[in-house]
């Protein structure tokens, strides 16, 4: 379809600059659909930079990859898109990791549920609490560092500080682990304060791992802290005949002390995360 008349040049000028009122713009657009000559006249009047910006916007909308499930979930939670992309590159913030963690904690909770009131009840509850406290430690170890971050060497040559990257990832891992363990805890036999006893040890162990990782690589730090924790928790339950001794008053106090000490160490030594590849 074509037309025999052409739009007023002044109207085209105003339209190209975005200053034409809505009613006249709507009328002009109807004409533009049928008139190649006037479409060309509009194109000639629009500044090149404005066309480039418009094209880039369209290209960005079409070409930018659709974020994955975790990244989408983070965006829904209000996480900034560039932080969501940083987190999406974290091994321990993948769906497979969450499923494995949920399976381990769910199984422990299920066992505690089915052994409640029996001789094994205390041991299975102990198992759940120990696992819940260790889950974020494992997640943090898999969040950053040589061996777990494939682009680590490129990353440490970049200006983003290693401590910032690690703390952002560690916070996300900790949050996700607490959420998963919290949901799994709902399956425990008695929904009293017992099911929250792992929270403070989890925080203490995670921060201790981060503090130790200023000397050791994150995986070595997590193994050291995790094994120490297992030995201490098991030994205290055997020595006191209270299966949950490590989670009661003394354990909570030690956890609090570990949190405070670790925060002080991290404040002092966080530059150690700036990154040097291991020899």
């Amino acid at each position, binding site marked *: 379809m074509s037309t025999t008349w052409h739009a007023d040049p002044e109207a085209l000028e105003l339209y190209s600059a975005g200053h034409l009122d809505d009613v006249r713009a709507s009328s002009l657009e109807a004409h533009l659909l049928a008139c190649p000559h006037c479409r060309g006249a509009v194109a000639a009047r629009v500044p090149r930079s404005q066309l480039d910006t418009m094209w880039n916007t369209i290209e960005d909308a079409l*070409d930018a*990859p659709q974020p994955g499930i975790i990244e989408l979930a983070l965006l829904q939670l209000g996480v900034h898109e560039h932080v969501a992309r940083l987190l999406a590159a974290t091994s321990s913030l993948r769906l497979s990791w969450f499923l494995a963690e949920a399976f381990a904690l769910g199984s422990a909770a299920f066992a505690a549920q089915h052994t409640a009131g029996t001789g094994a009840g205390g041991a299975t509850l102990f198992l759940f609490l120990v696992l819940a406290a260790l889950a974020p430690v494992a997640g943090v170890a898999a969040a950053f560092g040589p061996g777990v971050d494939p682009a680590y060497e*490129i990353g440490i*040559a*970049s*200006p983003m500080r290693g401590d910032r990257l690690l703390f952002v990832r560690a916070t996300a891992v900790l949050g996700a682990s607490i959420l998963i363990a919290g949901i799994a805890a709902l399956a425990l036999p008695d929904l009293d304060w017992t099911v929250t006893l792992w929270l403070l040890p989890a925080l203490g162990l995670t921060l201790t791992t981060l503090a130790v990782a200023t000397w050791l690589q994150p995986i070595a730090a997590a193994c050291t802290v995790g094994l120490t924790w297992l030995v201490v928790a098991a030994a205290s339950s055997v020595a006191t005949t209270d299966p949950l001794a490590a989670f009661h008053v003394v354990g909570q106090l030690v956890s609090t002390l570990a949190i405070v000490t670790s925060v002080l160490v991290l404040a002092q030594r966080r530059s150690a995360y700036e990154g040097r590849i291991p020899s």
Partner: protein
Amino acid sequence: MSVPAVEIIDVHKRFGRTTALAGLSFDAPAGITGLLGPNGAGKTTLLRMAATVLAPDIGQIRLLGWDPSLSDERLAIRRRLGYMPQEPGFHRSFTAFEFVDYIAILKEMTDRRTRHDEVRRVLTLVGVDGVMDRKIKALSGGMRRRVALAQALLGDPDILVLDEPTAGLDPEQRLRFREIVSERAGDRTVLLSTHQTEDVAALCPRVVVMLDGSALFEGTPKELTDVAAGRVWLAPERSPSARLSWRNPEGAHRNIGDAPSGADLVAPTLEDGYLLLVGQRAFTEEEVA
């Protein structure tokens, strides 16, 4: 006179019992400096130091006039640095676009639109814009190296550190690589390690030959070629005085070494000069780092 972008001053580095760098010193001014050397010469160790990811045991490195051992100055260097390691690691579940976008975020490009434009620019530059939405794990080795080069070019850095960038590339890709790097060089500084003497001859106005952690030669490709002037000759058999010798496609032996009198001397190549310098160790040493 301006300060060279890269200054290496009496740098030593050991890994356990192995000496990677033994008192290495040289300057790299603007332009492309090629590092040649056999495996184990210390090229990768040096480039890691130039990329601020490894510190020397002894000695000093200055990049763009700054000291990378100081936190603030290291940050300033990293803001103007592009680095492609010898074995770049990838988040294989990312697409090429997502991976380069991720590195762009690490390079402090937080505005989404500007960052995406820059990611597209570098991916187009290295010729992988057609596959940028493919997962890295689905890309060929050559494509992955181009993605690794793309991330190093983000932000048009003043210093570009490239460790074996042409390894695994086919001839056409290597030519494309030369085109990209030579276009980018200008008044920027490119440190490039390679085993390919053709790359050095084609690209680098300046070459450093490394052996056993120190610089054996510094100069232009022509000066390196001239090392072999009068020391390359053709003969029907391997000559006893030849340090290296091989049969060429015409059936004659190309001998490199101290030419006997009356030898049929031929024009040397850069490779001849290099081989004469490093000798047979070029084929026997192990890579240290």
